[in-house]
């Protein structure tokens, strides 16, 4: 069990998202910064999409009653365990009684606490993600409450060698951010200079931004022949222009369908950096092609695999019954399963 001593501003259970039900209006949701979240899971030897605690801005404090590995990734926190500063993006080993204080982020918004012990949660439509609007998933469909308990699977012995993610692989937080965009579905319905304006203006994240959408403040105004379209499916990262000329980027909890003209789409590789932006922070857009956008995703995947491979040469996976090891011998890689023999 894990006790939530302080829940912080908005901490909730999230995972890779509830996909496959958008045709009946169910938003996929899931984590805002998939890059930090996936790395967090890899650091503790989890599957990429294991449920985690997503923390907005900070304030989370936890007490553990078991031995396990955890990791803290995402926004720039100054975490402490039993008062002692601990690094982010690195395997941390906790023992019963350990008290984690996350602190408040100095840059970025979303932090991720991933846990090797796993969180015992009821999945709804294949996901443990908290959907605040529908009130489902996570813990009773809402944010974590101070004093609450999180059920975990049985404590595991330490299994993972210390893993540390290099700076270059982490989601950039703070500073001026550049975000790649592709032309939107209705770009040709906007005035001719709109694309240039989008690429040359700078924008500020509006304070009204949340997990559903980030509003962009800027001097440029984007006018289309009409701002309404016949309602249709909406992709994550879409930049809609409302009739007032304001831009809204569709974030993790966006509605499944929408009816505003679409000026551009944020590329998936830069979505994590955008998700970590705070109100008041400025960003600029740069142009990409579809091929380049896909290339960036593949590069990220390769970079993560390259980083992870040396660690995998020890252990691949573990369960109560058996453990798998990857062993490279004479340039040939073998996966060896080891199980306990009953006496």
């Amino acid at each position: 069990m894990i006790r939530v001593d302080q829940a912080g501003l908005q901490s909730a259970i999230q995972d890779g998202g509830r996909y496959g039900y958008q045709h009946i209006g169910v938003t996929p949701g899931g984590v805002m910064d998939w890059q930090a979240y996936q790395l967090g899971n890899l650091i503790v030897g989890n599957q990429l999409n294991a449920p985690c605690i997503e923390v907005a801005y900070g304030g989370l404090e936890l007490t553990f009653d078991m031995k396990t590995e955890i990791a803290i990734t995402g926004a720039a926190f100054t975490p402490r365990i039993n008062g002692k500063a601990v690094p982010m993006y690195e395997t941390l080993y906790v023992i019963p009684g350990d008290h984690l204080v996350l602190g408040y982020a100095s840059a970025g918004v979303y932090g991720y606490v991933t846990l090797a012990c796993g969180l015992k949660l009821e999945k709804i439509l294949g996901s443990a993600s908290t959907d605040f609007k529908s009130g489902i998933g996570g813990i009773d469909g809402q944010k974590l409450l101070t004093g609450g308990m999180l059920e975990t699977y049985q404590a595991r012995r330490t299994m993972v060698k210390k893993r540390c993610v290099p700076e270059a692989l982490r989601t950039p937080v703070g500073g001026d951010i550049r975000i790649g965009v592709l032309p939107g579905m209705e770009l040709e319905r906007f005035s001719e200079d709109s694309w240039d304006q989008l690429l040359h203006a700078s924008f500020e994240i509006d304070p009204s931004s949340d997990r559903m959408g980030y509003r962009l403040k800027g001097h440029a105004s984007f006018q289309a022949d009409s701002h309404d379209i016949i309602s249709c499916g909406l992709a994550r990262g879409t930049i809609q222009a409302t009739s007032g000329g304001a831009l809204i980027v569709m974030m993790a909890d966006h509605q499944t369908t929408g009816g505003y003209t679409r000026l551009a789409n944020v590329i998936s590789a830069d979505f994590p950096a955008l998700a970590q932006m705070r109100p008041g922070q400025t960003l600029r857009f740069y142009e990409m092609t579809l091929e380049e956008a896909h290339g960036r995703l593949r590069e990220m995947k390769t970079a993560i695999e390259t980083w992870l491979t040396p660690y995998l040469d020890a252990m691949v996976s573990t369960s109560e019954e058996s453990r798998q090891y990857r062993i490279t011998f004479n340039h040939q890689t073998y996966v060896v399963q080891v199980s306990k023999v009953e006496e």
Partner: protein
Amino acid sequence: MTRPKIIADGDCGIAVVFGDKISDTLNRQVHRFTDDLRGKRLVGILDIIPSYCSVLIHYDPLQIDHTSLVSIIETYVGSSDNQMDEGYDVVYLPVLYGGAYGMDIGTVAAVNNLTLEDVIRLHTVPYYRIYMIGFKAGFPYLGGLLEALETPRLKTPRIKVKAGSVGIAGKQTGIYPQDSPGGWQLIGQMPIPLIDWNHPDVALLKPGQYVKFYSVDEETYQALLQQVSQGIYPLKVVRVKEVPK
């Protein structure tokens, strides 16, 4: 018929656009194509979202590359053209109209110079096509509201509208799937939940089906509510070859 356009919608989406108007013909093409593609269970496709006249396919570019997916889509777009629909489901939904259950029914009547009975009669006549489901989990976009019932939205939206509320907003009629704020003119209450997270289908209604409302009295409504709370309630769904005009 013009060939649908296949357009990249960001780096994880492909839109198949069949046209740019609200029509039964286009929407039927949309759902035939959606059913075809869904049936293929392609690895890397995360979601298929049909709407009025287009389909958005959400894919993982690390699992299926864009070019192959486009050529697969081209194949199915072509083959879906020639098929006929095998029939349509009409879902009959009970509504307790007026009174505390539909407090704006008087407004709808007054705006359109009708009696309350007229509003109920005219609202229960059409077979409303479910063009799409979206906006909120389980919310059906219904087409076919009679012009005689069109009523502007409330000037000030209500902070809380109860799940199951049946309303009218402009040319649209619909049902609120969950308690939520809302500005629709409320004319009645439908007791059967549109969303049941524990049911394998989750949503009561599917896009491409038709909805036919029928008026029930308070006693029947209360009895239905009782049954719903026990998880057993009758739902009339009739398969028809052609939907009556």
